[in-house]
C-alpha cells in the first residue's frame, strides 16, 4: 500500500503487532485473583472477631496457617515445575479457612501439618486448583481431627480483649446441655469453639459480602441452613430437654462458616443452581443427623466432604435442558 504520500500524518496500525485469537475479543474483567481476594475480604470480619475473643493466639494460628499454606504450595510448584500460583490467592484462602477451623491454642506444628494436608493431600495431588474433588480445608480438618482428637476438640474459653495470656478451656455449646448457652453470646461470639465458629454476626457479614458480589450461589447456604433449622427444629419440639433450639444450632459450631465459606467453594460444589440446592440440602441433612444422633458434637465438615464426593453425580443429574430441546420420546434424536 503506497498511500502515505498524500496523508503522511495518519498513523496506521502495525499489522505485525496485531494479536489474533478466537472470539470474543473483550472480557468482563473478572479473574481468579479478584474473586479470591474478595473472599479474603469477606473473611476479615470473622478474623477480627476471632482476634477480639481469643487474643494474639488467634493471630498466631491464622498467620501460621496462611503462611504455611502459601509456602507449601510454592514449594510444591517448584518441585513439580509449575509456575508460581500464590498470586491467585487460593492458598491464602485455604490458609485462613484452615486457621478458622482450628482453635486458638493449637500448637504450631499442628497448624503446619494442617497446611500440608490441605495443600498437598487436599489439592495438589489432584492436580491443583480446580481439580480437587474435596474441600482442601476440610480434608485437613478431618485429617487432624482423626489424628489428634484431643487437640482438635479442646477449645479455649473466649474472653474479650486482645491481651489474653492464660488460656482456659471451654466446651463447644453444642456439647453442653440445652439451656446453658445464651443466645446473645452466640450471636456476638462469646462462646467456645474454633476461631471461625465464634461470632455469628461476623460470619453473616462475610456471607452477605459474598452474596452481594455474587461469588457464591445463594442456594447453598439457604438450603444448608434451612434444612438444619427445620430438622433440629422438629427434634427440639419433640424433645426440648435433649436438643438445643434450632437457633442455637444455626448460630453455633461451624455451621455458618461451613454454609457460607466452605460448602460454597466453587471447585467442590455443583455448577448448576438446581445442583446447588440439592447440595445444600444434603449438607444440612447430614449435619443434622450427625449432630442429633452421631457421636461427634459437630458434623458440618463430614457433611460437606460427603456432599463434595457426590458433586459430580449431582452435576450430571442436574444438566440443564438445552435451549429448544425436545424429549426423545417425540421421536427426535437429541
Amino acid at each position, binding site marked *: 500500500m503506497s498511500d502515505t504520500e498524500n496523508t503522511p500524518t495518519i498513523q496506521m496500525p502495525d*499489522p*505485525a*503487532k*496485531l*494479536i*489474533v*485469537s*478466537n472470539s470474543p475479543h473483550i472480557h468482563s474483567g473478572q479473574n481468579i485473583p479478584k474473586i479470591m481476594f474478595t473472599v479474603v475480604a469477606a473473611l476479615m470480619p470473622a478474623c477480627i472477631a476471632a482476634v477480639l475473643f481469643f487474643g494474639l493466639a488467634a493471630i498466631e494460628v491464622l498467620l501460621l496457617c496462611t503462611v504455611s499454606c502459601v509456602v507449601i504450595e510454592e514449594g510444591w510448584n517448584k518441585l513439580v515445575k509449575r509456575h508460581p500460583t500464590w498470586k491467585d490467592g487460593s492458598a491464602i484462602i485455604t490458609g485462613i479457612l484452615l486457621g478458622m477451623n482450628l482453635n486458638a491454642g493449637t500448637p504450631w506444628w499442628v497448624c503446619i501439618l494442617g497446611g500440608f494436608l490441605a495443600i498437598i493431600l487436599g489439592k495438589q495431588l489432584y492436580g491443583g486448583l480446580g481439580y480437587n474433588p474435596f474441600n482442601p480445608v476440610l480434608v485437613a480438618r478431618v485429617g487432624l481431627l482423626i489424628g489428634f482428637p484431643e487437640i482438635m476438640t479442646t477449645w479455649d474459653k473466649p474472653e474479650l480483649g486482645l491481651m489474653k495470656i492464660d488460656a482456659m478451656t471451654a466446651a463447644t455449646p453444642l456439647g453442653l446441655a440445652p439451656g446453658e448457652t445464651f443466645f446473645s453470646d452466640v450471636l456476638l461470639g462469646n462462646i467456645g469453639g474454633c476461631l471461625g465458629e465464634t461470632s455469628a454476626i461476623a460470619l453473616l457479614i462475610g456471607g452477605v459480602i459474598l452474596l452481594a458480589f455474587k461469588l457464591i450461589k445463594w442456594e447453598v447456604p439457604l438450603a444448608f441452613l434451612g434444612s438444619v433449622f427445620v430438622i433440629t427444629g422438629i427434634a427440639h419440639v419433640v424433645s426440648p430437654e435433649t436438643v438445643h433450639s434450632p437457633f442455637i444450632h444455626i448460630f453455633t459450631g461451624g455451621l455458618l462458616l461451613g454454609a457460607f465459606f466452605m460448602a460454597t467453594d466453587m471447585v467442590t460444589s455443583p455448577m448448576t443452581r438446581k445442583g446447588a440446592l440439592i447440595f445444600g440440602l444434603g449438607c444440612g441433612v447430614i449435619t443434622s443427623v450427625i449432630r442429633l444422633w452421631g457421636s461427634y458434637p459437630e458434623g458440618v465438615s463430614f457433611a460437606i466432604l460427603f456432599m463434595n464426593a457426590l458433586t459430580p453425580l449431582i452435576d450430571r443429574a442436574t444438566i440443564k435442558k438445552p435451549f429448544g430441546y425436545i424429549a426423545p420420546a417425540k421421536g427426535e434424536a437429541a
Partner: protein
Amino acid sequence: MIAAIVSVGVLGALLGVIIGVVAKAFAVEVDERIEGVGDLLPGANCGGCGYAGCADFAKAVVGETATPDQCPVCSAEDISNIAGYLGIVAEEKEKMVAVVRCSGNASNTVRSLYNGVRDCRSAVLVAGGAKGCDYGCLGFGSCADACPFGAIEIRDALAIVHPELCVGCENCVAVCPKNLIVMVPASVDVHVYCNSPEKGAAKRKVCKTACIACRKCVKASGEEDHMLVDGFLVKTNYDNPPPTDLVEASACPTTALRLASKHAAGGYEGVSK
C-alpha cells in the same frame, strides 16, 4: 481364634474349588497361536495396522483376515519371524517413515501474535494458525502428541521427525490440519521441506526456507528424474530416489532440500540465507 482360622481356611478352600471347577467347565477355547503371534508383535498398541491394538491384530493374523506385514512397526525380520511361526509366506515390505514437509521454524518465518489454545487443530481455526504461510507447520505439536513413539520433536515451533525413531504407524498423518505429513520410504533421505504451491516470490516474503522452484536440484540430478517439478514446488521422486549427495551438489539456495537425518539432528538451523 482357632475357630476363626479354621472357618476362614475352609471358606477359602471351598471358594478355590468352586473357582477351579467353573474355570474348567466354562473355559473358552483360545487358539494358542494368537498369544504366540502377540508375543512376536511389538506390543505398542499404536493402531497403525487399523486394528484395536496388537492383540486384536494377532487374532486377525491368525484368522487370516490380515497379513503380518500390515503391522507398520514390525521390521522385516519380525514379520518373517511371525510368518515362520505361522508357517505362511511373508511378503517383502518396505519400511516407511513420516516426513513433515515444512522447514519454516519460528526463526525463518513470518508469524503473527496468536493467543489461544496451544493445539494445531484448534489454532488453525484462528486466522489459519496465524502463520504467514498458509501451508506451513503451525508447531503446536498435535502430531507429536499423537505419536506413541516420541519420534516427533517440536523445535523452534516446527515439527521434526526423527527417522530412526519413527516406526511408520501413520498416527500423525491424519491429525495435521495442514496435511503436511506424508509417509516415505525410510531408505530415502533427501526430501523437499516445503509444501506451499504459491509462487516463489510470495513464499519468500513469508518464509526464508521455502522451495522457490529454482530447479537447481533438478539440474543437479542431470538426466535422472530424481526430482519432480509440480507447479511452483519441487518434490522428491520416491520411485527413483536421489542419492544423498544431491543436496550437496544442488546447493539449494533456501535449504528447503534437506537430508532427513541432518534435519533431525539440527544441521540446518541458522544456515538459511
